[in-house]
């Protein structure tokens, strides 16, 4: 029961913190710019906005790193707040590169490898993941035959489940070669998904809902599928077992198969990105609705609607926890299936 109370408190926090942020905006008198607020959260940024205190944003400025012809430039993003220009760079207020650092004179993008919010979140999540699994490894090194308790025990159960139910069944006989990769992918996605659901500092970044992150993961799976593909796999693509007319004069099926080589990881990329991004969007929208209603309805109606949206927000948070796991599972399972197919 205590456990559920903790979860409930956490979920309430999930709703309450963005609510507070929205309230600060609404307090300004004008209607909150929902789209702006939503995109601001879903996209990357050069600072980590923690909260707004008495109308002033409290944010951690992150380092900007730009690799140019003159070498590496490193400075704090606090120099660039509110459209200021610094060392010939500014954050674009509109245009194609809206919200990104551009050269002040012509608005083009430099090679920008700043430690943004998502990068920092990825680093924190990666550190968390490394800590978790090295702790588990240390446990096994010390007392192999004793099952661990607590978070390590929970991790062990999930590792076992993924290994036995997904990797062994989908990859087949030489699963041991691919199991480290697939387990890494699964837990990387899962930890990033779950951390994204926590609204306060180390969490809350929309990492797996960012196309660059899912693109990297999908590329790794693409490499795993194609670098270790068997002869049979390549034959199925370029000379499949279909009537000759479908492949001889005009290679219809081979072309389709060849496109399929790229669409499989592409689908993985889009699926994970869209699900997580959508989840974040819904969670924020639920909270934003409170303020939309607040500015348009009378106080009685708005308080009952507020209660409704809080309940719906909590409900969505539960669903997002489920989605966080399911998406990690689906990505891993499909990767395993594709690898298994290419190894036949």
């Amino acid at each position, binding site marked *: 029961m205590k456990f559920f109370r903790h979860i409930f408190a956490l979920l309430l926090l999930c709703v309450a913190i963005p609510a507070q942020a929205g309230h600060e905006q609404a307090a300004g008198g004008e209607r909150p710019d929902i789209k702006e607020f939503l*995109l601001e959260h*879903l*996209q*990357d940024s050069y600072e980590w906005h923690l909260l707004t205190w008495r109308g002033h944003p409290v944010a951690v400025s992150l380092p900007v*790193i730009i690799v140019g012809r003159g070498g590496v430039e490193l400075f704090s993003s606090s120099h660039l707040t509110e459209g200021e220009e610094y060392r010939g760079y500014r954050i674009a207020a509109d245009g*194609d*590169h*809206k*919200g*990104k650092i551009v050269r002040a004179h012509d608005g083009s*993008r430099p*090679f*920008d*490898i*700043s*430690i*943004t919010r*998502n*990068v920092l979140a*990825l*680093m924190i999540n*990666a550190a968390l*993941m*490394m800590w978790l*699994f*090295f702790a*588990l*490894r240390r446990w*096994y*090194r010390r007392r*192999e*035959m004793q*099952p661990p308790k607590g978070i390590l025990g929970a991790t*062990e159960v999930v*590792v*076992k489940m993924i*290994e036995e139910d997904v990797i062994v069944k989908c990859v087949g006989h030489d699963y*041991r070669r691919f*199991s*480290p*990769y697939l*387990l*890494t992918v699964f837990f*990387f996605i899962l930890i990033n998904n779950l951390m994204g659901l926590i609204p306060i500092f180390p969490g809350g970044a929309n990492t797996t809902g*960012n*196309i*660059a*992150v899912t*693109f*990297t*993961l999908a590329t*790794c799976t693409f490499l795993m599928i194609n670098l270790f593909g068997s002869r049979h796999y390549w034959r199925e693509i370029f000379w499949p077992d279909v009537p000759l007319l479908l492949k001889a004069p005009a290679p219809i099926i081979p072309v389709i198969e060849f496109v399929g080589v790229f669409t499989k990881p592409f689908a993985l990329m889009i699926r994970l990105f869209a699900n997580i*991004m959508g989840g974040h969007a819904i969670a924020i929208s639920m909270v934003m609705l409170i303020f939309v209603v607040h500015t348009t309805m009378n106080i009685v109606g708005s308080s009952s609607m507020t209660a409704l949206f809080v309940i719906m927000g909590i409900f969505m948070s539960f669903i997002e926890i489920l989605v966080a796991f399911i998406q990690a599972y689906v990505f891993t399972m499909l990767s395993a299936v594709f690898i298994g197919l290419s190894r036949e």
Partner: protein
Amino acid sequence: MSLLTPDIGLLFWMAVIFAIVLGALGKWAFPFITSSLRRRNERIEESLRHAEEVDRRLEALAVESEEVMRAARRDQSQILYEANRAAEEIVREAREKAAAEGARELEDARAQIRAEKERVIKEIRSEVAALSVTVAEKILRSELDKGMDRPFVERMIAEAEASEKERPV
């Protein structure tokens, strides 16, 4: 559309971070963890099998001991029965022997008694004969003295001889 265009900087860092995570965990953590899990699984399976084996062996042992017990019990009753019989035999033999001995001794005693009796009878008879001879002598002497006739004496002697012959010895 900026949501759908991957940012180069994030792509770069994601590749670096993921490579580090994959390299470290894929090399040191996950193979170790999965092989540990596998070993533990095998160990558990083996232990279960072993326990089953031990159980089965114990059961067999129980059956065997039961068998031994039953055999022992059977042997015991057999031995008891035989001992009983032997005891009975011994007693019977002893009794028989005793009876035979008794009979023999009785017989011996009887024979001795008979012999003694005969000897006594003989003795008595010879005594009686001597006595009667003495009596006869005395009578004869007196009779003769009185002048008894000769023919009477001779008849008397003849009669005595005759009766001596009739009597079984």
